[in-house]
């Protein structure tokens, strides 16, 4: 049991953490009420501005963080029900400090970028209202000091994700992508809620009624290992929904229907990491349940590999990135699952930098190509969009684990821990290493096909290609710098007060260097196939046609789900609708409504307006009551 380092040593009470959440909320109000009236310039100033303010406050919190301690802002007592008291309290410790800096820092850059990207959209106030609301919810999720607040944030970000995926709701496909995301997440949330309930009740059965993380940590030792295992698995179901892991990852690729900055903020850098954060936050429970940890690690590794293979053949620039996100999240879960929590969170941070950059770069490309997303119709953008290309290259090198860039450090740390940790295994390491090679390959395939070679765009599109405006390239450059140097902010010692001291892993040279070699090999292979011998890709596809089709169709998972889950549910609902609903319920309800309305009319007759009748009914009532007492 690892809850010996239970409650953090020093806790300072402060009262400014609430503003971190409050500023974006004010932005929401501003955008809803004043937005449609004040015009674009004010919206473009206020919406990123409030996030920047949150960033400053987050930074101040980081500076004031006592060593090995935490800051707590208890706003008020939220709920008192019997022996349970839930405070509306926000908590900054090294883990949440990392998260709020990512959310507000990367979030701010994406807000700025959005002002350029959405410059031609009419509904910009609604867009920023959602985006600010998302930021506030995400901050609440990571700042909340109890499970209930986390859940409020969790549902809040889910709602915003739905609203933003379907932002262009007049397009049916986009609207249904939003619905898909929402429904799939609901399935995960059901598990998540059950996990919370089980945790709450099983602690309650031991006499501890609490939802606060610190208290759960103190008393977790009271619980039986089997109970903790079930709790952790249920919570993990929620994580697979929000963080797009097998089997619930299917919504994320479709979520690319939303505006591209949204994909960068929500579906790459922040919201999808909520599951990672939640497990890291409750790491003391997972450490008690090795079985649950193993499940997390295996699901993570398999998702990483599986999604990477799909990404190999996709032709939509955002879908490649979407599958890449699923795959990279798999890495993070692998890290958590082998007990290397800080490695997982470290990769979460570096991934936020380079994946946000990749998405924003893709957005810049799409913007320039008049909304074209198919990489087969791109090519040759290198010279026309030098800043986008340069920053995209940095991001590709970072995600491919090129030595010295951020992804190299975090990914290698996870893979080393996979071997070194008592919860790890060589098989998982092997899958991870293979995935590293695949990652490098598909990322550079994307880079080469999009930016190198001759342009394959139709003339009128090619004619318009231009570098994006400064508000869009500035964030790209800043994120490129972060992607470059992000790996040197080693988070492990910083996070040690949360996850406990950690000894650096000692692994053999093979384990240490093979992932990097695999990455470099992936880059080389992509160069061979897409630059030196472009016909080769075609030949490979034909030679392994069956595999190619399988990958292109994403293993037919959507079709399988459709056949075995969606269609039966739809059929059952139709039956319920036709028979149960129309005949029985509607019959009853209409009957009731008619009866009720008829009664209403009947009762209205009582209301004759005649005062004698009123007095009579009054008297009758009085007599009945008297009769009752005198009987």
């Amino acid at each position, binding site marked *: 049991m690892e809850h010996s380092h239970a409650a953090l040593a020093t806790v300072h009470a402060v009262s400014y953490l609430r503003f971190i959440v409050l500023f974006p909320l004010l932005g929401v109000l501003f955008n809803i009420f004043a937005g449609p009236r004040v015009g674009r310039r004010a919206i473009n100033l206020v919406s990123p501005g409030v996030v920047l303010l949150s960033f400053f406050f987050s930074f101040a919190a980081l500076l004031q963080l006592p060593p090995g301690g935490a800051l707590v802002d208890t706003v*008020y007592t*939220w709920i008192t029900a019997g022996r349970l008291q839930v405070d509306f309290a926000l908590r900054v410790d090294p883990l949440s400090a990392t998260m709020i800096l990512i959310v507000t820092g990367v979030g701010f850059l994406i807000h700025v970028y959005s002002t350029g990207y959405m410059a031609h959209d009419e509904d910009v106030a609604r867009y920023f209202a959602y985006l600010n609301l998302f930021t506030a919810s995400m901050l609440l999720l990571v700042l909340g000091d109890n499970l209930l607040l986390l859940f409020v944030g969790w549902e809040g970000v889910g709602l915003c994700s739905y609203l933003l995926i379907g932002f262009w709701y007049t397009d049916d496909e986009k609207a249904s992508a939003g619905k898909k995301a929402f429904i799939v997440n609901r399935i995960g949330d059901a598990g998540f809620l059950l996990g919370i309930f089980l945790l709450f009740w099983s602690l309650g059965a031991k006499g501890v009624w609490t939802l606060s993380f610190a208290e759960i940590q103190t008393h977790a030792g009271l619980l039986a290992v089997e109970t903790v295992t079930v709790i952790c698995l249920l919570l993990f179901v929620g994580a697979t929904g929000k963080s797009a892991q097998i089997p619930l990852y299917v919504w994320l690729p479709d979520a690319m229907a939303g505006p591209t900055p949204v994909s960068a903020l929500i579906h790459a850098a922040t919201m999808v990491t909520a599951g990672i954060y939640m497990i890291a936050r409750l790491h003391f429970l997972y450490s008690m349940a090795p079985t649950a940890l193993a499940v997390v690690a295996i699901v993570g590794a398999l998702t990483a590999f599986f999604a990477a293979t799909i990404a190999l053949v996709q032709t939509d620039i955002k879908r490649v990135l979407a599958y890449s996100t699923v795959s990279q999240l798999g890495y993070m879960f692998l890290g958590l699952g082998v007990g290397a929590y800080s490695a997982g969170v470290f990769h979460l941070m570096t991934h936020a930098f380079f994946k946000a950059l990749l998405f924003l770069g893709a957005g810049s490309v799409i913007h320039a190509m008049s909304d074209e997303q198919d990489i087969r119709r791109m090519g040759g953008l290198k010279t026309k969009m030098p800043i986008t290309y340069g920053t995209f290259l940095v991001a590709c090198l970072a995600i491919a684990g090129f030595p010295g860039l951020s992804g190299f450090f975090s990914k290698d740390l996870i893979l080393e821990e996979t071997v070194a940790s008592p919860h790890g295994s060589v098989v998982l390491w092997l899958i991870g290493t293979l995935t590293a090679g695949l990652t490098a390959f598909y990322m550079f395939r994307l880079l080469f096909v999009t930016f190198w070679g001759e342009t394959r765009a139709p003339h009128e599109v090619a004619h318009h290609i231009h570098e994006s405006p400064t508000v869009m390239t500035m964030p790209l450059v800043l994120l490129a710098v972060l992607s470059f140097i992000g790996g040197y902010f080693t988070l492990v010692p910083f996070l040690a007060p949360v996850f406990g001291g950690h000894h650096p892993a000692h692994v053999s040279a093979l384990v240490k260097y093979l992932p990097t070699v695999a990455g470099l090999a992936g880059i080389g292979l992509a160069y061979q196939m897409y630059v030196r011998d472009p016909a080769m890709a075609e030949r490979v596809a034909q030679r392994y046609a069956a595999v190619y089709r399988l990958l292109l169709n994403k293993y037919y998972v959507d079709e399988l789900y459709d056949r075995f889950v969606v269609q039966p549910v739809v059929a059952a609902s139709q039956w319920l609708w036709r028979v149960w609903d129309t005949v029985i319920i509607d019959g009853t309800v209409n009957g009731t409504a008619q009866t*009720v309305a008829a009664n209403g009319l009947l009762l*209205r007759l009582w*209301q004759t307006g005649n005062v004698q009748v*009123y*007095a009579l009914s009054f008297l009758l*009532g*009085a007599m009945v009551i008297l009769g009752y*007492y005198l009987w």
Partner: protein
Amino acid sequence: MITPPPVNWLSLLPGLILTVTGLLILFWDLWMKPEERRLLAWLGFIGFVAAGIVSVLLWGRNESAFNGMLALDAYALFFNVIFCVVGAMTILMSVHYLETVEIQPGEYYALLLFATVGMVVMAAATDLIVIFLGLETMSIAVYVLAGMWIRRLQSSEAALKYFLLGAFASGFFLYGIALLYGATGSVQLDKIATAATTGGVSSLFLVGIALLIVGFGFKVAAAPFHVWTPDVYEGAPTTVTAFMAVGVKAAAFAAFARVFLHTFGSLHAEWEGILWVLAVLTMTVGNITALVQRNIKRMLAYSSIAHAGYLLIAMVAGRDLGGAALLYYLVAYGVMTLGAFGVVLAVGRQGEPNEEVSDYIGLGLRYPVLGAAMTVFMLSLTGVPPLVGFTGKFYIFSAAVQAGYIWLAVLGVLNSVISAYYYIRVVVNMYMYEEGGKTIEALSARPALVTAILLAAVATVFMGVFPSASISLAKESFLPPG
């Protein structure tokens, strides 16, 4: 020589402030230029605010006065604050309205203050005769207020009906007092309570209780004593309707709960059955009849009947939980109902009251703030979280469940479901249809009225999201038994 009992002036202070303000208004009105009459509103407003502030300052003193006829305990002060807030809000809503319907402001504001004096007495009274005194002071002022819209025939009709039936109910109430005096030898609540616990209950005692139920049932508009409500609420000037629906009901419940939950607390088994039936009947009649109403004032009248039913559930649940839930719900009901009437006022004007539910078609799109506020009130009245109406119902129903009245809670929830139909219909009309009705303008939305509406809306949301402070205040106010 008979020495007069010592007078505890402090305990009278809130009522005195209101009385003096009312008198000042009457006198000032005499030599005031007609165009300056608006100042009377602000004088009245200041009076309410001052009395409210004094009540807050007196908090925790727990005084008793006039040989135990009045108590200035937390319970009374809690209600004083409610009454003063209701009075002040009513004034904010009346300033412009009085001009449109041509009501004399002098008498109107003075009567508003005098009615509130009656309420203050009712909440503080620890003696049945004093309760009756307060009840009549309040009622007579309100009878007149209901009939002040002289140009409207229904207003006079409302006043007369209310007066006749009110007098009828007062008869029952007084007779009940007389019988209780016969049974226990006292009209003081603590002595009656002692008699009830020590001397057993005679059938004389029980009949006295029954008659008090009838009397209170009339004032809180519980079925079957509610029949006057729709006619009076519809006919009276809308501001008076709001004042009656909230203030009068709160005052009646203040006395009702003090007598039944505290004094007759030990006899809970004797009256809970009757009130159980009244609660169910009141909720059901209120909600079902509201379904078929087309006039929004009438709909709100039935809605207020239904809410009296929910409040009766809290009475049946009794004990500390039921009492605290009752107090909390009165506040909740007060803010959301005042707000709803405020919106009704905003869209009505002379000759064009716009009181049909169908008049609200498209309103939300043309007046986003007004529409949003009305939506908040309607959803809160339905009991949708996180608004105060939900929190209030939650406390009432959980008090009922904890006291073992599971069926009562179930019926209460079912009733809330029925009520959704007519509340939500207003919201649907405001947003879902753009044409089909006449396009009404919110011409009467003047600053004072809009302030009142917004205050109510903010309170509705705020107390729903942050219920802890107000519920603990309600608990604290109910706890010290009278």
